[in-house]
């Protein structure tokens, strides 16, 4: 347990080694440092998990104080790590999935110029993400939060020679910053009101100080929700994630699917005590989640770029998690986060393998027929897709999504409306997922295969495919064996979602309906997009364009925010506040020029200066 600090320290060390030695490190060394550090972190995390389960620490949490960060005027901040079941799930996902993605990157980035730089950023990201989830207090969490934001920025713009990538990176940074600012304000309000920022204490004091439904609780919960919405790309700050696909594919897999974007979910789960005091905030969370999952699902349906499909799908799945959080199904949200990390990382890595094989081609209309050429990639991708589409019984995605759909109805906060949106989302998910599979792997081949994936790329695919299929058995519904390993464990730190009276009876029915929705989606996709399918239904073009552009949020924001701001900036280009400083500079310059004229290099004028000085002294002596 005392080795907890090692988990973030490993990747940080890797980052330091990679940046300090940078060019001097041979490629093979750089790669092994990059992968090894995350591997070591993963091993340490597993050790930690074993230890944690073996000796349940008191109050189900373990806190490690490293040192005092600051101690001024009553604000006592420590670098301290907090480990409970929730954190443990997160670090296992981060280090485990992170390790396989790093391994995969060895192959994927093998011929890239910035090989060392890539691993340095990735390691820094993992370190920051671990700090985020391990943080015992909110400022430390915020440090990790901003750290992952920075790494996300650096990695989206990794191929910086293309201005478009730089633009995407900036967009991601600025849009998430809107949420971050809300969150920072939230932290200030919390400190101002409660006098502490230590997470557990905040929740205790908040519960003591604020009655449920009080304005203060609502305000802070909404501000924190703002941060979460920005980071997890939910409505209305979802616009950055599709563009973030400009980064290398392993980055998309790690940061924009498995880990960083789930930080918002983690934040809400971590501060659930606060949200429970503000039922309105929870309802808003649920509404945001439900709306996002549908909107993103429609957008995913029409994308041509394989990575953008996955990006919208990620937004949609995060919507599920928000919905779950909103209806109080905490462990369901985390469970979906857990399985989603596996299958979405798998899908991204599979997509990466395809892109890699086709020499950088990302447009699905130019793919096809890869089933025969890349059989392993196809089968693993299919496993991931099935999991995403929640193919009943055999996939992890089914169990986690089904839990959310059920609780969207059955929870005291849920209802038929949420349930209906969730099921519609499931249908959409299955539809776009299999559209993607079919367009990519079946039909005539349109681009020749250059580089089939090597061993280091195949191994992660296999492992993640296995996990995507089996991870769901940790938690099964009543009707299917009723395994409660995951939620039983999580309920040591998260409250259990109750059931509204009289709804248990419908469980089987609703599960069947949800499974049916997924199957319908898959079937629909086969009918519509399979090369042998006879019927071709196409959407109206304008609607299609509208969805491709993600419901036009970008142009809306452009009109509402960006352009007025640019106009304002242009209006005040010669900042009028600057005039004073310009004047100062002018004064200094004029003084310089006047004085410089006296330094003319002539001995006689220097002697004059001396004489005049002496005369001045004499004059003062006489006059004073």
């Amino acid at each position, binding site marked *: 347990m005392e080795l907890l600090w090692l988990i973030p320290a490993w990747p940080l060390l890797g980052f330091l080694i990679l940046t300090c030695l940078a060019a001097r490190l041979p490629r093979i060394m750089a790669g092994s440092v990059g992968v090894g550090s995350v591997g070591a972190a993963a091993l340490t995390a597993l050790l930690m998990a074993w230890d944690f389960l073996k000796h349940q620490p008191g109050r189900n949490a373990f806190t490690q104080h490293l040192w005092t960060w600051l101690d001024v005027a009553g604000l006592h901040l420590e670098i301290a790590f907090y480990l409970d079941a929730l954190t443990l799930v997160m670090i296992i996902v981060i280090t485990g999935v992170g390790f396989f993605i790093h391994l995969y990157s060895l192959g994927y980035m093998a011929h890239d110029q910035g090989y060392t730089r890539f691993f340095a950023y990735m390691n820094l990201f993992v370190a920051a993400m671990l700090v985020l989830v391990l943080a015992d207090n909110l400022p430390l969490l915020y440090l990790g939060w901003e750290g992952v934001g920075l790494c996300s920025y650096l990695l989206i713009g990794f191929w910086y020679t293309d201005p478009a990538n730089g633009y995407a990176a900036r967009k991601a940074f600025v849009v998430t910053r809107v949420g971050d600012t809300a969150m920072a304000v939230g932290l200030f309000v919390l400190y101002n009101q409660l006098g502490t920022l230590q997470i557990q204490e905040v929740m205790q004091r908040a519960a003591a100080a604020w009655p449920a439904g009080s304005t203060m609780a609502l305000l802070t919960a909404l501000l924190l929700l703002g941060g979460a919405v920005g980071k997890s790309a939910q409505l209305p700050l979802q616009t950055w994630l599709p563009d973030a696909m400009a980064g290398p594919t392993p980055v998309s897999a790690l940061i924009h699917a498995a880990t960083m974007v789930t930080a918002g979910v983690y934040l809400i789960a971590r501060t659930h005590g606060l949200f429970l005091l503000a039922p309105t905030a929870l309802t808003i969370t649920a509404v945001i989640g439900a709306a996002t999952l549908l909107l993103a699902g429609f957008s995913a349906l029409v994308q041509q770029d394989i990575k953008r499909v996955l990006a919208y799908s990620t937004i949609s799945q995060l919507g599920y998690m928000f919905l779950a959080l909103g209806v109080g199904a905490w462990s369901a949200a985390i469970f979906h986060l857990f399985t989603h990390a596996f299958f979405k990382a798998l899908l991204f890595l599979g997509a990466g393998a395809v892109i890699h094989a086709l020499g950088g081609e990302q447009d699905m209309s130019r793919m096809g027929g890869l089933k025969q050429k890349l059989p392993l990639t196809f089968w693993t991708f299919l496993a991931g897709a099935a999991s995403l589409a929640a193919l009943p019984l055999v996939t992890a995605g089914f169990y986690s999504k089904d839990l959310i759909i059920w609780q969207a109805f059955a929870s005291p906060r849920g209802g038929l409306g949420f349930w209906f949106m969730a099921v519609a989302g499931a249908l959409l998910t299955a539809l776009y997922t299999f559209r993607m599979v079919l367009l990519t792997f079946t039909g005539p081949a349109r681009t020749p295969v250059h580089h089939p994936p090597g061993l280091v790329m195949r191994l992660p695919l296999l492992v993640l495919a296995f996990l995507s299929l089996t991870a769901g058995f940790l938690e099964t519904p009543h009707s299917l064996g009723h395994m409660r390993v995951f939620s039983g464990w999580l309920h040591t730190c998260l409250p259990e979602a109750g059931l509204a009276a009289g709804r248990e009876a419908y469980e089987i029915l609703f599960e069947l309906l949800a499974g049916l929705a997924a199957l319908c989606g898959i079937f629909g996709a086969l009918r519509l997009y399979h090369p042998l399918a006879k019927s071709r239904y196409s959407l109206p073009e304008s609607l299609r364009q509208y969805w491709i552009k993600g419901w036009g949020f970008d142009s809306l924001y452009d009109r509402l925010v960006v352009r007025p701001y640019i106009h304002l900036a242009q209006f005040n280009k010669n900042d009028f506040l600057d005039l004073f400083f310009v004047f100062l500079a002018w004064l200094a310059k004029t*003084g310089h020029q006047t004085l410089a004229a006296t330094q003319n290099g002539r001995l006689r004028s*220097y*002697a004059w200066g*001396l004489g005049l*000085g002496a005369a001045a002294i004499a004059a*003062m002596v006489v006059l004073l």
Partner: protein
Amino acid sequence: MHRPDFIALAPLLILALSAAAVMLAIALRRNHLSAMGLSLTGLGAALTALPLMARYTPRTVTPLLIMDHFALFYTGLILAATAVVIVLSYDYFSQKDDLPEEAYLLLLLAALGAVILVCARHVAALFLGLEILSVSLYALIAYTRDRNISIEAGIKYLVLAAVSAAFLLFGAALIYAHTGALDFQQLGALLKAEPSGRPALILLAGLGFLVVAVGFKLALTPFHMWTPDIYQGAPAPVTAFVATVSKGAMAALLVRLFTPTDLPHWPALYLFFTAMAAASMAAGNLLALLQTNVKRLLAYSSIAHMGYLLAALLFSGQKAAVVMTFYLTVYVVSILGCFGIIAILSSKERDADTCQDLQGLFFRRPLLTGVFTTMLLSLAGIPLTAGFIGKFYVVSAGVENAHWFLVIILVVFSGVGLFYYLRVIIAMFSPSLDEGLVPSPALPALSAPVVLTLTFLSTLVLWLGVWPSWFLATLEKMLG
């Protein structure tokens, strides 16, 4: 003269002896290395003599000299600075083939003059020391006689220094005419006894003319105009010597002369000192603003620094000695580092003193750039360097005694000063514009002693900047 007298005078005697020895060595057999070695040995011996003679201090040796803790500290500072200059000179002069040996002889003599200045307790000793120092400097400034600019600088310095010496003598004569004393202590007593308000005109005029000479040596406005030309013309190590030893000795004399007298008691002098300090801070910083020649820039910056130093004298009353000594030590160390870098980079034909010479230095010589940056930041007074602590003490003394006018001037023009220091630093860190077009000049190999010296100096700057308490405590024990 008794034995303790000789022991108390040991550093002076050793310096004089080693000067004679160097001259003899040159006469017998010209050798650059041996001349340098002999000079360094002499300085080392004089330095080791300091702790030995500490037992006999304070001691008045002849009516002219006093060896007290103050003199001891400044002698040490002068000897150490001279040693650094000599180390720098060796590399600098060895690439200029003809007759470098006499430079060491002159440096030793100049150091002797400076030491006499800081030990002086009589106007005669003051004059003696000043002249030994000045005459050596005339020759040193014009030492690279194949450069017109050096000769010009030498002649300018000769004429102006002679004029200022004339003022000194005239001032001394006036004082003597009024009081009949030339002994500092006696003078101090007589000055204290003067009725306040309107003291005798002759006495005041005499003191004023004395101040002219001091102001000239320290390059305080309006006696500052020689500085840039001399700094630019003199060979880089000699410039370092002028900037540190010559000014340091004079500043020490200023402290010795004026700390015992109650300056506000003399409105005319007090006002003039205030005006000089303010004008020096303003003129120095403003003149340096757009200067592109680094040696001239440092000359202007030194004018400003002497202004700060004078402000410290006005601010801190009884504590002036400690504050000024700290500031001066830091200044000496930083300036030695700066000119050391310039000396290293200089070629046979000219000194590397323009911003173009330094452009992109970081990519060719990261270590030197680091040292230079440290020194410049220290001069600018950036925290974590010794310069910050020095300036901080000056400002805090000013605030304590509510000298708002000078404090405001100091702060404002320090801000202005930051601009030109940073300009030099930026030049060093930006890649050269003509990179690849013109082959960059072949850099001379760095010799180990020079690198060690520079590393030592920058360590000192950082150490004093981070942990000044030990040094301050020592100063307070010695001078307080």
